[in-house]
């Protein structure tokens, strides 16, 4: 439905230097999907979104929506944002302070090329206001709304013209933590109900994982990995993705042998030989980095049945009680690993504890020299 091909966008900063904001971006979002661009600030995710919106003019590439091309570098075609018919919610909400709730929402219907009668506008506005539960506030001054209400008003305004595409630029980042979680559910419910194709930009990995059908992790202007939330989390393709999405232990290693089972390898590391999984095939002797999620490091006082594979008798170095979980720093030889376990594990500091990791949860990826390369 939304197709972005070989998109390059650059701009010049205040110092007049060119900034390569988005580099060789390829995106394909199916109809009705919720697609998220995830990455740290300055990674090019907002530039990509603004290029899709038409607020930024890309250097080259092609963008099309439902097979209608809205930008093509080679053909010199650029449809201005007000002719693209996309809805957009901005980070600041951009609620016009000189208008009330109703006129803010009605604006897109009044200024568009399709003319609506007063009654039609009224009906459409009230329907969308009801969908975001603001219908009782239609005459309220926009400046008198709370943060969550402003956020929903911005959403209503983006939806009222029934856009082909909904663009959301960190819409939840200005809300406080409790409200953010509430709006996360709200947003997901609305998107799944309306089945509207959505591109969402965020730097918050839990938002991205919670909301999306597909996530693209970006860094330094390039997409690092595109996949389902589970793929991104459990099968990161490079060190950046593993590090940015969730927290992880990195262990350097070298491939000892390819195992019989498809995708599994024997890896030599500073904490001994491990059994690990890799999406990309590797050969014996290759340098790799292993990513081990803290919650995948199981701790127990009792010795596990099988201690031959990925098991250590480690020492508890430090521990932190978090309420719903317990963080342990354990020492395997000289190496410290982070483990997140159930709070029922109460091994005191200085005591030994058994640590075990499922081989499928030890993800091998190319060593860090290749960090910036797109997959």
């Amino acid at each position, binding site marked *: 439905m939304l197709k972005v091909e070989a998109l390059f966008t650059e*701009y*010049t900063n205040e110092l007049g230097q060119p900034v390569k904001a988005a580099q060789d971006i390829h995106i394909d979002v199916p*109809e*009705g999907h919720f697609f998220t661009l995830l990455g740290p600030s300055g990674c090019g995710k907002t530039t990509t979104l603004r290029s899709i*919106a*038409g*607020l930024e003019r890309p250097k080259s590439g092609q963008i099309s929506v439902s097979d*209608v091309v*809205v930008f093509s570098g080679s053909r010199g*075609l*650029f*449809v*201005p*944002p*007000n*002719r*693209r*018919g*996309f*809805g*957009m919610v*901005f*980070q*600041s*909400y*951009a609620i*016009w*302070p*000189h208008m009330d709730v109703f006129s803010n929402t009605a*604006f*897109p219907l009044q*200024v*568009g*090329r*399709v003319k609506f009668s007063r009654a039609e506008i009224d009906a459409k506005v009230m329907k969308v206001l009801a969908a975001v539960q603001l219908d009782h506030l239609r005459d309220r001054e926009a400046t008198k709304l709370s943060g969550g209400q402003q956020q929903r008003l*911005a959403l209503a*305004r*983006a*939806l009222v*013209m*029934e*856009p*082909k595409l909904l*663009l959301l630029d960190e819409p939840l980042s200005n809300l406080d933590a409790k409200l953010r979680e509430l709006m996360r559910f709200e947003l997901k419910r609305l998107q799944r*109900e*309306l*089945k*509207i194709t959505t591109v969402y930009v965020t730097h918050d990995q839990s938002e991205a994982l919670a909301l999306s059908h597909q996530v693209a992790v970006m860094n330094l202007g390039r997409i690092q990995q595109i996949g389902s939330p589970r793929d991104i989390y459990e099968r990161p393709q490079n060190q950046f993705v593993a590090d940015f999405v969730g927290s992880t232990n990195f262990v350097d290693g070298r491939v000892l042998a390819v195992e019989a089972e498809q995708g599994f390898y024997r890896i030599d590391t500073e904490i001994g030989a491990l059994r690990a999984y890799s999406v990309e095939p590797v050969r014996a002797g290759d340098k790799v980095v292993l990513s081990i999620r803290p919650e995948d490091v199981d701790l127990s006082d009792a010795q596990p049945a099988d201690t031959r594979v990925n098991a250590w008798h480690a020492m508890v170095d430090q521990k932190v009680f978090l309420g719903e979980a317990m963080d342990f720093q354990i020492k395997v030889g000289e190496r410290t690993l982070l483990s997140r376990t159930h709070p029922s594990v109460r091994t005191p500091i200085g005591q030994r504890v058994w640590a075990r990791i499922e081989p499928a949860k030890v993800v091998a990826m190319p060593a860090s020299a290749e960090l910036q390369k797109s997959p």
Partner: protein
Amino acid sequence: MTPDLPIPSRPSAGASDAGFSINWKWLVIGVCVAFTLYIAVIPLGFLLWQSFFTPQTATKAAVFTFGNYITAYTDSDTARLFGNSLRYAAGVSAFSFTVGTGLAWMNERTNTPFKNLFYALSLIPLVIPGILFTVSWILLGSPKIGIVNLVLMNWFNLSGPVFDIYSMWGMIWVDGLHYSPMAFLLMTAAFRAMDPSLEESATMSGANVFQVIWHITLKLAWPAIFATFLILFVRAIESFEVPALLGLPVGIHVFTSAIYQAVHRYPSQVGLASTYAITLLLITTAGIYFISRLSSSGSKYSTMTGKGFRPRQIDLGRWRWFAAAVFFVYFSLIVMLPFLVLLWSSLQKFYAVPSMQALQNLTLDPYRFILNYPNLGRSVWNSLFLSFSTATVIMLITSVICWIVVKTKLPGRWLLDNLASLPMVFPGLVLGLALMIFYLNVDIGVYGTMWILFIAYVTRFMPYGLRFNTTSMLQIHKELEESAAMSGASWGTTFRRIILPLLKPGLVAGWIYIMIVSIRELSSSILLYSPGTEVISIIIWELWENGQYVELSALGVMFILMLFVLVMIAQHVGKKFGIKEH
């Protein structure tokens, strides 16, 4: 998609009509840029050109010469002129700075009683135009008829007048008083912008009061102090009314009065006036250049946030009543006395010093005379029409200019900003001279009509409009505009329905301010008016030249009351739109 929100009913975008909306946008931008160029650059160019030509007379055509510069710069009179101007401007700026800073400090940092009232009154001096302020101080301080002199002579049995307003010191006194409210407002802003926690942390580090003032307060306020001083200096060296009314009769010449005289001589020495004007322009340009350098370097001191604090106040103890008395005396000097002396003189048949006998001769004759004055109706209409259209045109054009400067990334937008601010360096008289020369030489039917006054006013006050609009424009978040574009609004619609309404505070405040300053304008108008296009300040000037003091006073009183109403409206509107000071 669900039937609830079906596939968009909007037609898909096409490139052709997108092109149309862009053209419309570029048309408006183009017109505004062209207008700015025309307004800001042309008069300056012609002034330069003219300064290299001999005067044109009926028999002799103008020829190219360096003679004007040679005459001007080899003449010992010019050296004196230069010295006078600098002494005058330095005196005025030092005096008004001292008064304004003292008052601002008392108002911001001490517990002087009634200071809120005083701050509210700080806009009132705007209502007394320079020419009326000068005239009223002549009525107060002239050696022959000045009330203050006569009263003092009477009380202390003196044989001669105590002071003479027709002197360099008199000029400095009158103009210094006139500019002191400006110094007060600028320094108040500087005091308010200073974060007291910076001073408090110095105190906590063990510094005493004087160390704090020397190492922190003064160092932080230095850009503001220097900029204020420079602004006052530039305004003083440009000022025309005081040097013309007080200096010319006793032969104290400064650049502005010398330009006026050179033009009004026969044959009129426009070339010589131009060289003086160029010299004056160089001085003001240097001043404005340093001011803008200061204000941009001032942003380095952005720790001065000016948000959410109330500085600790110094308790003056019993001295606070003395401070309140100082406020009262000051207010009397700049508003009460000038207005009362005009009111008194406007109720006399012939000008007389207040006495019991004169009190019995009160009459409304001067008002009758003025109301039947042949040119009055027309000049009032001209003034209102000019100030209204000037304010409107400036605010609309500068809103586009500052949109380009603030919101776009167009190359060369800084140049546009500088061009639109360029008229700031024009003293009113120099601008008048430049436009006069240009439209005398380029006959497109502008000279001798209202148009030339209109052009002069727009040129002169455009920088103010830009300033007001820029302040508001900077507060409009970029996304407010982008969300309109995403809603399908074209550039024109966005500008009309989003930008202009959000600019309203700045637009309205700037509009009223420009209305007030253009209704008082004298120094450009005096070289550009012709019979039929007189404005109110010109009528006042004429009455002064004719020695019709009581009639002038009557007109002055009515004029001040009219401006008072305008200022009141301005304050009211300012409050309504959340603008506190300008």
